[in-house]
């Protein structure tokens, strides 16, 4: 979570059009941290990088994508949410929302076809939850009992609109319409997220089909880094929304799992790691004509 936050802050500083994740780290990390490397993951566009990092991607090459560098895994071509394909991450290749819910469902279908016990975990925003893609996918995955867990990373906002303007009922309530388990969890509590996801993953791995989880969190910052958020000046943060990093840190300290100096050391090490990655990325050559890649259109 510390890596997620520090890298995100650095990326926001370097690129005003990056989409900040601050405040939502527990949902991102808790959703994916316990999976096997051969499982598939389909993270939401709001910071997929920490998920790539969990699986072994190079931080500086991820950062290079955000800076439009040739060294990015996408060779500077796509919206910068990609990473190495071989890490079993469903790629994000267009600016549209909801299509990765479909392709993630396909990863689960591939696992069912091959007869393995691999699973897929897919996160998406509360704005994306209103794409027909989610409804079609939930129904199809339920009909075929696909090994997938759908997680709505509910941060309360779709760009400038508050959730009450676009969600009728609740996202988790939609699970019952498709006859699958639904669970709501505090998306700022990483242990609660892990626990809820683990149950759904176990179910999927055992061949008992998909689940839908709604993780409630809050978008602390603008839709993009330079967003002045004039549209929500009058909006109060909801009560009880805690900083997921603080919440987890208190718990570690209370449980004497570690002491304050150990936590501070983690922060310092991560800051240094992020700084080095950003410097290396910034120094790399920009993507340009040589990345146009006419030969890369067809395999």
């Amino acid at each position: 979570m510390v890596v997620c936050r520090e890298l995100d802050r650095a990326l926001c500083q370097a690129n005003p059009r990056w989409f900040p994740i601050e405040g939502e780290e527990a949902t991102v990390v808790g959703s994916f941290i316990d999976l096997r490397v051969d499982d598939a993951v389909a993270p939401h566009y709001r910071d997929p990088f920490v998920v790539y990092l969990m699986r072994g991607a190079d931080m500086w090459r991820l950062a290079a994508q955000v800076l439009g560098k040739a060294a990015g895994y996408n060779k500077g071509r796509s919206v910068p949410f990609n990473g190495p394909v071989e890490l079993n991450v469903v790629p994000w290749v267009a600016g549209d929302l909801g299509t990765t819910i479909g392709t993630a469902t396909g990863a689960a279908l591939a696992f069912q076809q091959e007869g393995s016990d691999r699973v897929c975990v897919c996160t998406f925003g509360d704005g994306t939850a209103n794409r027909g893609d989610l409804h079609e996918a939930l129904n199809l995955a339920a009909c075929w009992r696909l090994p997938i867990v759908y997680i709505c990373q509910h941060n309360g906002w779709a760009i400038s609109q508050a959730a009450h303007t676009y969600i009728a009922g609740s996202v988790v309530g939609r699970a019952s319409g498709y006859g699958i388990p639904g669970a709501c969890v505090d998306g700022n509590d990483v242990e609660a997220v892990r626990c809820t996801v683990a149950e759904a993953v176990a179910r999927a791995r055992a061949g008992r089909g998909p689940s839908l989880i709604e993780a409630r969190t809050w978008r602390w910052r603008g839709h993009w880094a330079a967003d002045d958020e004039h549209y929500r000046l009058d909006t109060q943060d909801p009560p009880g929304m805690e900083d997921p990093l603080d919440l987890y840190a208190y718990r570690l300290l209370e449980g004497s799992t570690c002491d304050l100096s150990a936590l501070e050391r983690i922060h310092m090490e991560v800051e240094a790691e992020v700084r080095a990655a950003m410097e290396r990325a910034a120094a790399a050559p920009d993507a340009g004509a040589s990345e146009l890649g006419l030969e890369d259109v067809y395999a």
Partner: protein
Amino acid sequence: MTTTASALMTQTEAILDAIASEMRHDERVFYIGQDVGAMGGSMLGTQGLLAEFGPRRIREAPISESAMVGAAIGAALFGQRPIVEISFGEFIPAAMNQLINQAPNLHYMTGGVARVPLVIRTRVGDGPYGGHPQDYSAWFAHVPGLKVVMPARPSDARGLMLAALRDANPVLYFEPMSLAHAPRERVDLDNDECLAKIGKARLARPGADVTVAAVGSMVRASLRAAEMLETDDALEVEVIDLRSLRPLDTGAVVESVRRTGRLVTVHESWVSGGIGAEVVAAVAEACPEALRAPAVRLGTAPVPTPSGKVRPHALPNAERIAAAVRRLVGHS
């Protein structure tokens, strides 16, 4: 002595033979669609597949084209080789986001790494039952990253399906509905020469006076027109079956027009923004001096393809192709 196996097949039987034979030796190939199981498919298009391969590989899906195509793309990314059947081309717009924003982008946008070996099978145009006639095939030929094919005879129907199933890219396979149950033709079953055909046009009939570049059902209509023109007007019409809308074999047409000096294009989809326009543009770029008369583009009248007794007035046919050729050579 080598013996060559062959069989008489309709277009539909030829496509089914290709799918079944590929499924027999490649466990990764499976099928998604509506009514593809017990019913045997729209227009008998999947007859026998469920009995041979079972419900795990012949999957009946909810009526959710976007989820079907999305799931197939995902399965392809993770090592499978799915075929998605969209029963009729009119339903394809429901899957447009997946077909345009995902399937063709994945390889390029991941730096040339991700692969999407996927076949989308659908049916377009006029047909024996009259329904769902809209032909949207040309839309997809606009998009880098997609391949688009349309057969005009049973042996190409088989060969193009085999080629599509062995391709590493998303291939849209459009069946001309009017040819689905057209008379059987002899199909060579041993010949793998068909595998090179995506992107390669076929000389359907040689001729010295006029080039007709045709797609799908209009190849047959063009051949009929050529026979009429030979008998009635002593004209030699060359007919080129484009077979693939993307990649488009413009070289074959240019070569032909250099000899004939006259060009007619014809397809069931509309003229404006159609493949015929692309063919004419290629000739205008490569050899404008070869054209001894203005090129002529034929297609469905610029109306939403109508039903019933109005439809024949909208569609191109052999008579209209022949009339266009006569005008072109000054015989009318």
